[in-house]
């Protein structure tokens, strides 16, 4: 079956460094035969989590907005790439808004217990984090990782890899970065190959390469 790759851009800035890096990743994935889709959070209408905990009783979010179908796409994808620039040492409010809304899945897993991702499922679903930062600091992405980890844990994806590039202000943008765009393209190709071999292994056609 064709590998489905979903890219989610959490940048408010259209076609900036982070979205360009995501585009390169998706092009790589498409070149390896995947079907790809990009969702730009800025174009959607949604509200951050209200912390009402109603989902702890019902397993559903009381907010009926554009994130409901997006969560459907996320759960249908084989690979999800979450992309956000670093603002104030963290991910954007837009992406954090999406991540916080995954609370209903947490509730389904741990309170209602009608949702379970097997280790096989998690292995066959890969999540990546794509990010750029203006600052050169090595630790500029560190505070972003825990929320990304929480999101992929909640949605049944293995947090597979990062495609991150700092020091954008000095490089003058991701297009002038020596390796970032090629790395993103190559990783897009590679993850599709890994997912295909896992699918084949599951069908007993070939042993998984890894």
């Amino acid at each position, binding site marked *: 079956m064709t590998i489905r790759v979903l890219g989610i851009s959490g*940048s*408010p*800035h259209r076609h*900036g460094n982070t979205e360009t890096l995501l585009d390169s990743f998706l092009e790589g994935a498409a070149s390896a035969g995947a079907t790809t889709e990009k969702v730009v959070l800025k174009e959607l209408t949604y509200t*951050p*989590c*209200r*912390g*009402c*905990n109603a989902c702890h009783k019902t397993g559903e979010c009381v907010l009926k907005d554009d994130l409901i179908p997006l969560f459907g796409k996320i759960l249908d994808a084989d690979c999800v790439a979450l992309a956000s*620039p670093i*603002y*104030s*040492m*963290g*991910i*954007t*409010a*837009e992406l*954090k*808004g999406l*991540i*916080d809304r*995954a*609370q209903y899945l947490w509730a389904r897993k741990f309170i209602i217990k009608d949702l379970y991702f097997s280790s096989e499922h998690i292995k066959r679903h890969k999540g990546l984090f794509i990010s750029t930062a203006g600052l050169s600091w090595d630790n500029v992405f*560190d*505070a*972003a*990782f*825990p*929320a990304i*980890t*929480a*999101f992929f844990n*909640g949605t049944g994806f293995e947090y597979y890899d990062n495609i991150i590039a700092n020091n954008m202000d000095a490089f003058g943008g991701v297009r002038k970065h020596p390796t970032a765009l090629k790395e993103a393209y190559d990783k897009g190709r590679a993850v599709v190959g890994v997912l295909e071999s896992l699918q084949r292994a599951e069908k007993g056609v070939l042993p998984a390469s890894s």
Partner: protein
Amino acid sequence: MPVKILAFAGSPRRHGNSETLLDWVLEAMGEDPQVSIEKIALSDADIHPCRGCNACEKLNACVQRDGMDAVHDKIIEADGIVISAPIFCMGINAQTKALIDRAQVFRSRKYVLKLPVVPPERKGKRLGVFLATAGQNWPHVFDAAIPSVKCFYHVVDIRDADISYLMINGVDEKGAILNHPAAKADAERLGHSTITELKKRLAG
């Protein structure tokens, strides 16, 4: 001397654990008649996320017209700024992150336009307080929130050493903090000590 406190209740849940913690701090601060306090609930404040347009690097102002217009001047005028937020998914909640990211206008003023954020005589006389609550019991549950909070205070001329923290983990359901053995006393102590320190600095 008068002391101005500006407080943000960052949680979308009104009067939940993080706002209760904030209220304890503010009540202790307010025991001093010279202290004036304004509390803003971000759920009512209509502060949108930063658009990343970088126009503030040229305009010295944000292009968005929303609740931040009223908040901007209050941030400059306050002697003490208190932020309270819940931890959602291992990070600061999205509404509070939106406020922090909108402080980009101060960062542009300070580092790009090289203009003062507060008058030079007020530097070192402002204090920050960060209050947080988390449902998780993990000791590292607050770690990813702190760098963003430091960014906010840094760009509004509140130094790292002038930020105090009170973060309570293991409180999830509404009201859980009421049963915490130490949170209320710690919050009151923090409220008193912050005012004492502010008055000392403002007098100096």
